[in-house]
C-alpha cells in the first residue's frame, strides 16, 4: 500500500491537533476530523432540515463549541422554535424552553430521544466524542476523490465500552473533512448513515457544509445539517457555556 498519503495526512493532523502521534494511523485521522469540525473553539450558523415522508421543516440555529466538552446550541428561527437552546457540559445536558422559561436537566433516559424532532438524539450531541474515546480505529481502505484521498476507517468498540453499536465506519478526507459516518448494529447491519453532501470553504477551512443523516430502511426520512457560516479558533467568552447564559442569552 502506498503510505505516502497517510504520512501526509498524519502530518497535517499533527499540525491541526498538535497531539497526534507521528506514525500515520486511523486514530489521528479521526482526531483530525473532529478538530476540523470543531477546532479548539467554534461559532457556527446552521440550518437543520428535518424531512419526513409527509412533511418537512427547517430550523435555523447558532452553535458554539469549546474543546471537546462544551457546546451550546440556540435556535433562532422559525419564531415558534426560536429561543430553544441546548447546553452540554462534559456528560451533562440541559435544555431551555422559553415558553416554560425553564431549564431542564436531561435525565439519562431522555438522552437517547430525538433532538428537536430530528434524526439526531441528544446523545449525538453529548456523546459525539465516543467515536474518539470508546473505539479502536483501523484503516480499511483509501480511495481517490479528485485531488483528495478519502480514507475509510472502521471503529470497533473497545472491550467493555458502554456503546450499543456493533461498529462504526467513517470516511475521512486527507485534509480532515469527515465525509461519511455509518452506524452498524451488532449483526453488522447498517442502522443509520451520515454522509457529507457538500464541502465548502467556511471560516478559512475546508468544511463539511452539508451533512445528511438517514436512518437505514426508512426511505423518506432524513435530517440535513447545513452550515452556512462559521468561524473557528475564535475566543468564545467563558460565560457562554453556563446555565445563566442558557436561560438569559448575553450574545
Amino acid at each position: 500500500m502506498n503510505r505516502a498519503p497517510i504520512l501526509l495526512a498524519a502530518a497535517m493532523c499533527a499540525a491541526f491537533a498538535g497531539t497526534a502521534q507521528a506514525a500515520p494511523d486511523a486514530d489521528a485521522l479521526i482526531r483530525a476530523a473532529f478538530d476540523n469540525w470543531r477546532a479548539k473553539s467554534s461559532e457556527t450558523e446552521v440550518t437543520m432540515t428535518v424531512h419526513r415522508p409527509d412533511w418537512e421543516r427547517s430550523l435555523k440555529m447558532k452553535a458554539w463549541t469549546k474543546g471537546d466538552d462544551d457546546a451550546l446550541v440556540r435556535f433562532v428561527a422559525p419564531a415558534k422554535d426560536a429561543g430553544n437552546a441546548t447546553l452540554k457540559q462534559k456528560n451533562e445536558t440541559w435544555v431551555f424552553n422559553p415558553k416554560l422559561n425553564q431549564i431542564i436537566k436531561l435525565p439519562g433516559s431522555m438522552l437517547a430521544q430525538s433532538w428537536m424532532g430530528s434524526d439526531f438524539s441528544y446523545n449525538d450531541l453529548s456523546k459525539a466524542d465516543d467515536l474518539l474515546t470508546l473505539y479502536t480505529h483501523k484503516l480499511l481502505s483509501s480511495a481517490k476523490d479528485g485531488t483528495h484521498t478519502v480514507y475509510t476507517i472502521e471503529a470497533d468498540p473497545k472491550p467493555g465500552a458502554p456503546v450499543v453499536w456493533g461498529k462504526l465506519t467513517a470516511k475521512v478526507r486527507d485534509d480532515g473533512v469527515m465525509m461519511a459516518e455509518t452506524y452498524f448494529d451488532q449483526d453488522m447491519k447498517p442502522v443509520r448513515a451520515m454522509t457529507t453532501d457538500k464541502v465548502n470553504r467556511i471560516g478559512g477551512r475546508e468544511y463539511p457544509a452539508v451533512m445528511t443523516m438517514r436512518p437505514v430502511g426508512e426511505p423518506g426520512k432524513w435530517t440535513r445539517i447545513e452550515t452556512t457560516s462559521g468561524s473557528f479558533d475564535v475566543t468564545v467568552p467563558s460565560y457562554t457555556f453556563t446555565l445563566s447564559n442558557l436561560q438569559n442569552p448575553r450574545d
Partner: protein
Amino acid sequence: MGGFRFLLPLAWRSLWRNPRRTFITMLVVCVGLWSVLTFAVLLRAWSASSRDVAIRTITGEGQIHAQGYLDDPTVAHRLPPPDAGLMAVLNGGAVSAYSARVRLSAIVQSEYKTLPVTLVGVQPAHERQISVLPAQITAGHYLSGPDDVGIVLGSNLARRLKTRVGKRVVVMVQAADGHLAERAFQVVGLFAGPRTAEDEFVFTGLKTAQRFTGIGSDLSEIAFDVSNDAALPGVLAALERAVPGADVQSWKTLEPLSYAVSTFFDQFVLMWLWIIFLLMGFGIVNTQLMAVLERTREFGLLQALGMRPRLVLLEVALESVFLVGLGVALGAAAALATVSAFPKGIDLGFLARGAELAGAGHILYPVIVPSDFVTYSLMVWVLGVLATLWPARRASKVSPVEAMSHI
C-alpha cells in the same frame, strides 16, 4: 318423639304427591347452590393464582428495605450487608428462603431503543429459591453466580429492544456518588414470565451490580419466604427487631393489588351467596305457599282428627327440610362434579394476556375446600327451611271448620 316417627313418612309422602312442583323447587335450590359453590372454588383459585403470581415472580412473602426505598428505589436508600443477628433470623426455621438483591431503576439501551427497567443484582443460588423466573429461561442460560457479568432480560423486553442472547446492551443507572454510571452487558439469557415482569426486570450478578454502582457490599432489598403463612407476622416482628430502622413489609403491602383481589373475592362469594339465596327464597316460599293453600282442606282434616297446630307446622317444615335438603345435596354433588372435571386446572390461555391484567396466572387450579362446601350448603339448607316457616305457620293457623267447607 312418637310424633316424629309418624310425621317423617307423612312429610316425605306429601312431598311426592306433586312430583313436578317438588322437582322444580329442588332444581332452583340445586342450581343456586351449585353456582355459589362453583363460584367460590373458581374465585378462590383465581385469588390463589393471583397471590402466587405476585409472590413467586420476584416479590417473595416479605421484603426488607432501607427506609424510603419503596418511595424512591434508588441507590441512595440501601441496606448494609446482613449482620449476625439478621442472618440468625434469615437462617432460622421460620424463614424458608431468602434472597439479597441490589434493585435499582435503570435504563437499558440497544442499537434501536432505550427503555426504562429495574436492574436486579442477584445471587442466583438464593434467587432460585424465591423466584420462578430463573427456572423459566427460554434462551441462553441464567446467571451462574454473584460475579456473573452477563445480563438476563425478559423475552418481551429483548423483542422490543431488538436484541438477543449474545448481543450487547448498555445499562445506565445512578451510582452511589450521584453520577450516571454506564456499562455494557452481554445478554446471556432470556426469561419468560408475566409480561409486566418481562418488561420490567433485568438481572445480573449481585457483585457485578454492586461494583457497577459503587456501593461496596450494600444491598437494596432482602426478599424472603416463610415456611408457613401463620409464621409471617412472627417473622416480620423478628426481622424488625434484628434490623432496627429498616422497612420490613409483607407481600400484602408490597403487592396491594393481589392482596385486594384475594380479600375482594372472599367478600364477593358471600355477596353472591346472599343474592342467590334471596332468589331461591322467593322460589321456595312461593311453591310452599301454593302447596299449603292447595292443601287447606287436608290440614283442616288433620286438625279435625286431633293433630295439634304445632305438629302441622312441623310437618310442613319437615317437608321443606327434605325438599331443600335434596336440592342442596344435588347442588353440592353437581359442584363437586364440575370442579373435578378440571383435574389439570383451567387453562386461561384463551383469555391471552387479559387474565394477567387481573393478576392471575395462565392456569387456575380449582381446589375443593371442604369447609366452604359444608358451610355454604348448611347455610342454604337452614335459610331455605327458615323461609318456609311462614307458609308452615299459615297451614297451622287453618281453622278445621272453615277448612272442611273449603273446596
